[in-house]
């Protein structure tokens, strides 16, 4: 019961935070709301017994990724919103309608998945803990893991190439 209350509270919080994150004028405020959203999700992860992932969510997303956003916003000195007139309002309106229709499609598909209703009452021991994730990562998923290392290397090189000091 408590689980349910927690879930609904944080679900609501995450939706509100997400909504505020994409609607605030000031990008810094947006980032703050996004952090709030990610924290809420981390709580939900815990409810889903994904303990390790919840930790990673906080550390990587809130701690690293969003801080990077703040850093760039500060560096480019973009604390205020955009100036100048809004363009393509009709187009954006069409986009919003399309997005809502897609949500409808998702929702009816989710509802249509009738047979799978409740979550199992209790996860197995050790489910979602670091050891379980780590074991899989370093055995069955060793190949994608190595690839991910390459991907991160590409990202580092790329960031250097693009944003590194221009050579004169």
């Amino acid at each position, binding site marked *: 019961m408590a689980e349910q209350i927690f879930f609904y509270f944080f679900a609501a919080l995450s939706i509100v935070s997400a909504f505020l994150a994409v609607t605030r004028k000031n990008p810094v405020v*947006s980032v703050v709301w996004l952090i709030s959203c990610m924290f809420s999700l981390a709580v939900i992860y815990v409810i889903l017994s994904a303990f390790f992932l919840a930790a990673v969510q906080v550390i990587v*997303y809130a701690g690293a990724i969003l801080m990077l956003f703040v850093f*760039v916003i500060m560096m480019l000195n973009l604390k205020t919103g955009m100036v*100048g007139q809004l363009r393509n309002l009709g187009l954006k309106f069409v986009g919003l309608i399309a997005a809502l229709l897609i949500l409808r499609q998702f*929702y009816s598909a989710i509802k249509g998945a009738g047979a799978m209703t409740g979550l199992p009452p209790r996860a197995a021991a050790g489910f979602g803990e670091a050891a379980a994730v780590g074991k899989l*990562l370093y055995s069955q998923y060793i190949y994608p893991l190595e690839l991910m290392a390459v991907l991160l290397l590409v990202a580092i090189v790329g*960031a250097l190439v693009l944003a590194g000091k*221009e050579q004169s």
Partner: protein
Amino acid sequence: MIALQSLLTLSAVLFVIGVCGFITRRNVLIMFMSVELMLNAANLAMLAFARHNASMDPQVVAMFVMALAAAEVAVGLAIIVAVFRRRGTVNIDDLRNLKW
């Protein structure tokens, strides 16, 4: 008991909020943040299924998605910085030298 459908609905709503943010905001940084939101929605769906199917695989995949998000952010922000240096703006509406 939390229904799987509630979790998936939450994830779908977050995903679509991300989509809406992406198509409406002019600030490329916020557009980019919206993409992060969409990725989070996908992760939520994954973890819900992990719990529901009592399978660890979706959790591992979610892990990969987070790593990917980190890589994407590094590159994306670098591109944004490069654009800002050249054009002095992060307003997507002002970036239309390439068209037609």
